[in-house]
């Protein structure tokens, strides 16, 4: 594959990369937030987005387990019951198949439901409605029945909760035509994407991350404005770089940024792409970056086989094959159900070091041979 990759047709050359690699990478701008006026947590970002959209549109309502009196299992809906009342903030019994179907039906019939899954793991009991009732209706009905609904909740690996409570569903839902799949990382993402999801005319699967809820991010005045919204299908270059592209989403964006810091110290300038939208996938942004850096590392927490990394790799093979200077590196969770024991759990999910090593391999700077890290 390597040899083939070197048969490049377009511009971009090894020399320029070498030059870039020699330049102090610390010069690369850190996060690209505009004039950080304030910091808010991802939890606050989600909460305010829900609040503002509910206040703007009375057909928006929130349903799910413990969203009301308990204020949300992870307190994302805090205060909403008091503000909007139990007609619009509904505590459901524990019946994902039932209440998800009810949400979908309400969306068929003029409302804009937000269905909260206590965690996305439990959406497994509702997946029939997400895929068969929500994703396919617009098509089956030839555009007569649209389904403006948001399915949201924490997704991905949590800590110490074992195999059934710790799994990434990005690839599962991203496989399905008719669904849009978003995965915010920062507070800005959370606010802008959730608002976009609620306003969107189609079913959106909105994958949050429990371990990010409490994290604070700087936000600009623009982000805090109630009109703020991010486009669905657009990735964000979280950090500019020249030598290697690292794609990531959700919590892994933070890891990729940490890896980029470490790499910078070693003279490797990594460009970090926060995917934001898993479906549609921003192939243009990914390919533009790879054409610049000629190297790609994909990062995800989910299982490797048939995952997001596989799809990104294929998009690059299809669109920018001749630009690749190294085999694409895929960082993913181990191909096993999540173990409970803390030491095994740590091994089963990607770590910052894994990303650093993969990036070095891609840049032929590997201190560690491939076989040892796999």
């Amino acid at each position, binding site marked *: 594959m390597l040899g083939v990759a070197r048969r490049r047709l377009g511009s971009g050359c090894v020399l320029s990369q070498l030059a870039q690699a020699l330049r102090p990478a610390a010069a690369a701008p850190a996060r690209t937030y505009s004039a950080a006026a304030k910091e808010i947590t991802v939890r606050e970002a989600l909460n305010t987005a829900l609040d503002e959209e509910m206040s703007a549109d009375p057909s928006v309502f929130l349903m799910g387990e413990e969203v009301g009196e*308990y204020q949300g299992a992870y307190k994302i809906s805090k205060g909403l019951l*008091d503000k909007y009342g139990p007609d619009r903030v*509904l505590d459901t*019994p524990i019946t994902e198949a039932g209440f998800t179907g009810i949400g979908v039906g309400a969306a068929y019939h003029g409302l804009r439901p937000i269905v909260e899954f206590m965690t996305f793991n439990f959406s497994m009991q509702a997946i029939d409605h997400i895929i068969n009732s929500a994703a396919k209706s617009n098509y089956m009905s030839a555009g007569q029945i649209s389904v403006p609904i948001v399915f949201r909740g924490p997704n991905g690996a949590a800590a110490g909760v074992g195999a059934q409570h710790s799994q990434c569903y990005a690839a599962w839902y991203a496989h399905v035509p008719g669904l849009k799949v978003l995965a915010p990382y920062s507070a800005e993402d959370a606010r802008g994407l959730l608002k976009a999801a609620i306003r969107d005319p189609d079913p959106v699967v909105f994958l949050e991350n429990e371990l990010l809820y409490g994290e604070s991010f700087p936000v600009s005045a623009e982000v805090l404005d109630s009109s703020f919204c991010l486009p669905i299908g657009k990735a964000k270059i979280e950090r500019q770089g020249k030598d290697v592209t690292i794609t990531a989403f959700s919590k892994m964006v933070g890891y990729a940024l940490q890896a980029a810091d470490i790499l910078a110290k070693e003279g490797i300038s990594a460009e970090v792409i926060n995917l934001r939208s898993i479906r549609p996938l921003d192939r243009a942004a990914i390919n533009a970056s790879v054409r610049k850096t000629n190297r790609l590392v994909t990062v995800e927490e989910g299982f*490797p086989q048939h995952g997001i990394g596989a799809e990104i790799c294929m998009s690059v093979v299809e669109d920018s094959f001749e630009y690749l200077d190294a085999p694409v590196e895929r960082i993913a969770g*181990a191909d096993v159900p999540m*173990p409970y*024991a803390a*030491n*095994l759990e740590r091994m089963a999910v990607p770590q910052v070091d894994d990303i650093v090593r993969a990036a070095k391999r891609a840049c032929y700077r590997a201190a560690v041979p491939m076989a040892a890290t796999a």
Partner: protein
Amino acid sequence: MAAASFTAAKFLVPVAARSGGERAPPLPPVGASSSSFARTLRRGGGAHHHPRLRTALAVSSDLVAGNKAAQAAATHPAVTREEALEVYEDMVLGRVFEDMCAQMYYRGKMFGFVHLYNGQEAVSTGFIKLLNQADCVVSTYRDHVHALSKGVPPRNVMAELFGKATGCCRGQGGSMHMFSAPHNLLGGFAFIGEGIPVATGAAFAAKYRHEVLKESGPDGLDVTLAFFGDGTCNNGQFFECLNMAQLWKLPIVFVVENNLWAIGMSHLRATSDPEIWKKGPSFGMPGVHVDGMDVLKVREVAKEAIERARRGEGPTLVECETYRFRGHSLADPDELRKPDEKTHYAARDPITALKKYIIEENLATESELKSIEKKIDDVVEEAVEFADASPHPPRSQLLENVFADPKGFGIGPDGKYRCEDPKFTQGTAQV
């Protein structure tokens, strides 16, 4: 008769008169909206307004008929000294073990979601101690004590919680996923409702092995107990399985541990008819309500239901009214349950009640019970020492057990089994 848990009424006798009249009046709605829609949605309030707590509810069943029911109503069912002590020991073990878990959790020895069983011991002990080794138990995420009652050694349960290689699942399962094949503990299931079909499947297998494979012993069918909570009874899998279990007369007992709450959701706000036992008769099987804080009453009902299943007469739905003395999990702030409700149930502690009974009936002396408590303290202490001293799972364990077949990944391009290639499908794990 006021204290009766069940009457001799046939299970199909309509109970509408009773349930209609006694329903607690809905509380005024809390919160902003006061539309009638809102009121309907937010009917009820704290579970302490449940009618049962004020008026002991008589429940229909043909399980406990005639004299026996009257007897059960008048006093506790008789137990021998040996039985009483066995039951006491098992309940104390459950309690002390869980208290230790809380300590160990706060010390960072165990992690994630840890759901404790305090307060509900009479259900686990009352049912599981009646089982044979070949009988099955299917539990939920609140599964430590079910595992203990079924005979899984405390040290192996504790080691599992510590994430150690000596745990009953070598640290791979964790708090919510206790399995032990030798004890026919078929799992702790973390998803609501998920265990019910699995349990029904085990019961199906027992019947199949009995009737098709002619495997069972002379005692009859192996029995499966499915444990789950009140909140779970609103999930479709519950209803689907009541239907199939009765349709096929499967040897199963559906044991509802109605602790009145599902995390912060009061049972009364979640369900259109709070009397869960009544759903049995709707499917043609007996439904029984029993005081889940009284282990001897639970045991009496359990005996009937288990024997009935063993004889091949089909399933029973048993609703045990109980209470958890701690939050939903150790991470739950537990702010919605009212203090007076907690006090009410704390006063009905099933262990204290049994102790009192044993002493009053002269089945054992206070000091005999003390020595049981001491013994259990030592057992649990030893379990912690064992777990703490045990090794962490080795790295190589990460990729084991994905398949029963170690060659389950197939043959790779080099002609070797792919599972023998350390790079295959392991993601980023460095093993």
